[in-house]
């Protein structure tokens, strides 16, 4: 349920651990939670809680985006597609961020946004988001900083894809995913992993097996379980921590 700022004052429909009388409710999205009470109350009527389902496409290249999404429990993957139909994941957006930064940057999208983990998000109309952004307050500041963190995530993939072996890269994506999902078991299809790594679906099992043999994960029939998070952190390429640092403050 979408937290209603007005109901908080009356302490109605809100769990005790979420708020006190003086605090605003947690939306479970870091960008929204960083807003002042006044800013949140102005924005709240424009936010609509929606369920996002696996593989749902939120936008495609050249779409002029009508809505942006603040994921709360869902994860959305940003893919750059090539004309032969092969794509590659360049970014991941969960409760730390917003899907659809092109709404504030202007212009059309060049990426595909696909739901990678079923869950909820708060949806907002592009116009409503722009209006609050243009006031120049905490939402603008948060979205600008978030945009730079997202740029760092994407640009680190340029060097990572050019330089690092596949198993370390898979470990990196799994850690990024784990950070955003906050649970050890999740479904991740061969197709998504093939996008993460830029390899054919047939090659996915081999890479996943390497992590499995080291006892870091178990992977069967598209179901992942992180069995040794510390081990994954030791094994992954350095790109994980370089980018993670940029999301400190967003990924709580």
């Amino acid at each position: 349920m979408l937290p209603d700022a007005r109901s908080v004052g009356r302490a109605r429909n809100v769990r005790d651990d979420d708020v006190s009388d003086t605090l605003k409710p947690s939306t479970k999205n870091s960008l929204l939670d960083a807003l002042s009470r006044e800013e949140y109350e102005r924005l709240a009527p424009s936010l609509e809680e929606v369920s996002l389902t696996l593989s749902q496409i939120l936008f495609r290249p050249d779409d002029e985006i009508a809505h942006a999404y603040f994921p709360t429990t869902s994860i959305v993957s940003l893919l750059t597609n090539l004309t032969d139909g092969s794509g590659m994941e360049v970014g991941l957006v969960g409760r730390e961020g917003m899907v659809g930064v092109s709404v504030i940057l202007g212009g059309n999208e060049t990426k595909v946004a696909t739901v990678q983990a079923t869950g909820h998000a708060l949806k907002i109309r592009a116009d409503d988001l722009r209006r609050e952004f243009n006031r120049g307050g905490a939402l603008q500041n948060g979205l600008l900083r978030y945009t730079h963190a997202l740029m760092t995530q994407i640009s680190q993939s340029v060097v990572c894809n050019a330089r690092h072996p596949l198993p370390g890269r898979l470990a990196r994506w799994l850690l990024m995913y784990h950070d955003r999902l906050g649970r050890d078991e999740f479904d991740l299809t061969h197709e998504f992993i093939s996008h993460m790594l830029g390899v054919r679906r047939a090659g996915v099992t081999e890479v996943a097996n390497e992590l499995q043999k080291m006892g870091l994960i178990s992977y069967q029939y598209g179901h992942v379980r992180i069995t040794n998070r510390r081990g994954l952190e030791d094994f992954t390429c350095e790109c994980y921590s370089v980018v993670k640092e940029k999301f400190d403050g967003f990924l709580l």
Partner: protein
Amino acid sequence: MSAFESKNERALSDTCRVGERGRVEAALGARQAMSAETLMALGRKSVDAISLNALLANKLLAALPGDSFERLLPHLEPAALSAGEDLYRSDRGVPYAYFPESAVISQLHVLEDGNMTEAAMIGREGLVGLSALLNASLPTYWTRVLIAGSALRIRVDILKQEFGRGGALQRTLLAYVGARITQLSQRAVCSGRHKVGERLCCWLLMLHDRVGEDQLQLTHEIIASHLGVRRAGITEIANALRDRGIIAYNRGLIRIIDRQRLEAVVCECYRMLGRSAARVM
């Protein structure tokens, strides 16, 4: 000074003397790049300030409406950048943003083992210093001059203040952020999926677009480090391109001889990258 620039300067000094709006517009119509110093000298003489900036080499500044540009003009200073120079150091923060003119600047990611890869190339279509503009902490990458040349620089606090006013400057710079994200995303998939030969052709074309000259001062070593591959691989491909008469090189100079054939062998990423740059321009 190139023939273009001297021609422009003549056109503009005529304009200043006569002060005819129509003639400035004629000069604007020509859309030829002129040197920043000339423009700024003219600007400071407070010429009828209709979009003189449209003649600037940097496309972001050129795209600004006259009144937005006028506010920046007193704060812009020319900077000569030398190849290999690092624009920012971790102990000094990001004091200036740079609008490149003839200079080309690389965003380089350096790994623990000392190897590096370029994630973005910024020339006269863009701006360097986005981390500060976007209120982010110090960047994790290096910002290094790839091709020596000129740029206009501005103190970051002043640019942020103007950016904070909203309006055309903010819209133009945010659109550029979008174009940069497109470059990064395309290069992420390119470095993951495409062969070194295609990536080299793409990189040379991007550089050629930004420098605007056929002769590029580059060693195989630099190319290899920017593409994140071994030097031997670059030499092999460069030899093949030379044998086919597409490029020539000696002693740290590469000359683009047949651009059309480079375009014919490049991966699709070049078209996408060109599109995103054009969107800003």
